[in-house]
């Protein structure tokens, strides 16, 4: 087993990987940029190596700097986390050349699956159902226009090198197409270093259902059940859960088999995720394979009681899985809410800044994978994810109740977050009925505004804090007297 692993990432996922390393007795090495000098992953590592300036290209996306750092500290393996270089075949290849173990699939697999059009071709040949659309990237506007006409609007623009919704656009009509393509290509260029895009038929009201797979170097492949990730904003997931409310034992078997097929067809090794779109008639279509640890991997860990990072490291070290599909037994229900630094009342616009106060939710079945702390300055250069709030409970209703409680006790002062928004989504009828489709937010929470029915309480708090503040300054904080009356519950306070 490795004795030292370099974590080529930042934020909550870097910390997540380091935790497992520590529990396995493996030293973990952090890399950091100027903006992350006081980031948690820098402060909590066994060793920390400086990469360079804050912009990703000069630090977390600089392959040679990271290779250099790994050589310098004598790490035997590199964990890429998600985002940044996690799905960069060139990086994986450089690691292979340097004799560093890349904790993920072989570079050739990343290469072939990373190019979404090649991936679609592999799946088509492997007999996995795919969505109608182009099978190669295209940059000429006239060709794209023709393809779009042929598919029929609405069409979906996707980045060939894409992932995480970056470079994605839904286009309703031909007039929007040129602008959308330009923006998508630019976004893809910025995010992945490649502006290649292609078009797909846009399916209405599908669910996003993905299967976690594990494949070792000895030909053993299993799936770890599904995750439903239909609740998205700007094509980015914000709520994920498992099991999927739409899943049946038969469907799970069929999709799980397809996922394992996809893994075998591509010669997959290590942990990966096969994403599908599931329509209302239980037809499913291959979307893409994410050749890395998913942001939402914790909900799978919660229902299976399994540490996926530990499995990744074991597989990368050449160990066999040691269990079969029959050993995979799930328990209860898990939900994840992504806590982004963004403003849900303003198009989920990013909200970087200093976190003046942070109080994390705690309690049985509550897990918060958090990358920030009171006093931390959230950088403008990186992903807006502050933490991932995950709950487990015995069934879906209890999990929803637990998540609502956890969100309501999660205090973040200094940056905007979608906490209030998420609470309302979880409280909504359609969500509770499990009617979670990818158009959920557009349909039910378009232009959401936070209700002001409790705003009067904020006015009271303002005045009290103002007065108490003055009192504190005067050093007159009075000793405690007795309350004169019992206090009754404010559960559903209305003015």
């Amino acid at each position, binding site marked *: 087993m490795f004795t030292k692993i370099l974590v080529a990432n930042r934020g909550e996922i870097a910390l997540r990987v380091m935790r497992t390393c520590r529990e396995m007795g493996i030293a973990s090495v952090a890399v950091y940029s100027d903006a992350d000098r006081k980031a948690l992953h820098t402060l909590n590592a066994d060793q920390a190596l400086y990469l360079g300036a804050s*912009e990703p290209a000069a630090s977390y996306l600089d392959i040679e700097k990271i290779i250099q750092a790994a050589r310098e500290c004598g790490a035997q393996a590199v964990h890429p986390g998600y985002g940044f270089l996690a799905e960069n075949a060139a990086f994986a290849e450089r690691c292979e050349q340097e004799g560093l173990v890349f904790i993920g699939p072989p570079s050739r697999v990343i290469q072939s699956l990373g190019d979404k059009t090649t991936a679609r071709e592999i799946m088509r040949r492997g007999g996995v159902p795919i969505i109608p659309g182009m099978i190669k990237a295209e940059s000429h506007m006239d060709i794209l226009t023709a393809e779009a006409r042929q598919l029929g609007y609405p069409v979906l623009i996707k980045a060939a090198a894409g992932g995480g919704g*970056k470079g994605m656009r839904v286009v309703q009509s031909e007039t929007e197409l040129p602008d959308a393509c330009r*923006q998508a290509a*630019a976004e893809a260029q*910025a*995010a992945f270093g490649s502006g290649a895009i292609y078009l797909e038929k846009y399916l209405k009201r599908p669910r996003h259902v993905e299967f976690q797979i594990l494949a070792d170097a000895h030909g053993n492949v299993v799936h770890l059940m599904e995750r439903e990730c239909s609740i998205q904003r700007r094509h980015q997931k914000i709520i994920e859960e498992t099991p999927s409310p739409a899943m049946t034992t038969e469907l799970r078997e069929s999709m799980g088999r397809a996922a394992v097929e996809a893994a075998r067809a591509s010669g997959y090794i290590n942990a990966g995720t096969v994403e599908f779109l599931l329509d209302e008639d239980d037809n499913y279509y291959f979307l893409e394979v994410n050749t890395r640890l998913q942001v939402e991997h914790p909900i799978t860990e919660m229902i299976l009681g399994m540490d996926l990072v530990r499995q990744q490291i074991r597989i990368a070290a050449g160990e066999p899985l040691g269990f079969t599909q029959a050993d995979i037994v799930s328990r209860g229900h898990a939900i994840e809410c992504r806590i982004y*630094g963004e403003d849900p009342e303003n*198009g989920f*616009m*990013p*909200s*970087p800044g200093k976190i*003046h*106060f942070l*109080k994390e939710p705690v309690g049985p079945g509550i897990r918060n994978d958090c990358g920030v702390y009171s006093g931390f300055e959230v950088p*403008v*250069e*990186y*992903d*807006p994810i502050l933490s991932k709030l995950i709950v487990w409970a015995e069934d879906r209703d209890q999990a929803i109740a637990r998540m609502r409680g956890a*969100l*309501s006790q*999660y*205090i*973040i*002062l*200094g940056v*905007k977050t979608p*906490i*209030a928004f998420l609470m309302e989504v979880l409280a909504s009828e359609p969500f509770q009925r499990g009617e979670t489709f990818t158009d959920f937010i557009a349909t039910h929470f378009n232009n959401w505004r*936070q209700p*002001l029915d*409790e*705003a*009067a*309480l*904020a*006015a*009271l*708090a*303002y*005045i*009290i*804090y*103002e*007065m108490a503040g003055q009192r*504190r300054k005067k050093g007159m*904080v*009075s000793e*405690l*007297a007795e*309350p*004169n*009356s019992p*206090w*009754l*519950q*404010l559960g559903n*306070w209305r*003015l």
Partner: protein
Amino acid sequence: MEYKLKIEQTDFSVEVIDQHDRQLNLRLGDGVYEVEYEVVADHWIHMAVNVSGRTGLVNAWVMDGSEGKIIVINGRTYTVQDLDQLTRRVPKGRGANLPDQITPPMPAVVVAVPVAEGERVKKGQAVMVVSAMKMETTLCAPFDGVVAKINATVNDKVAPGQILVEITKDTDLTEDPAGGTNS
């Protein structure tokens, strides 16, 4: 004593009827609020609120922000401003609300400047592209005119209120109240 508070777009005028140690009586709208409170710890106050017979316990977390106090109650975050103090302060980050100024909607980094000084631009034409947390926003010309000055270049960190591009408006055009930014 009277407070004129503003929460989002709503005004609240609150009159302090009387106060003694850890207790407060207030009139807000047509309701009278009796409040007992504890300052529990930094940023954290606890209130027992009684209004027209209905009472309840409330935990509130508070911080002083640049635009007023940020207050979290029951998972919701409010920005509460004191209108009296507000008038006395030069508003920060207000620029974004003025339609004819080109300023980023959030702290961001400049990723592209598609125009040059002296260049003639049409209303709605992209004049600067900024990025925050991997999300791109295109700032457009609010009206036809000539680019008088460009105050930021690629990789600059910019903040709301900061004017990134100055455009001399064509006098023959009437001002357009809408837009200014789109993403």
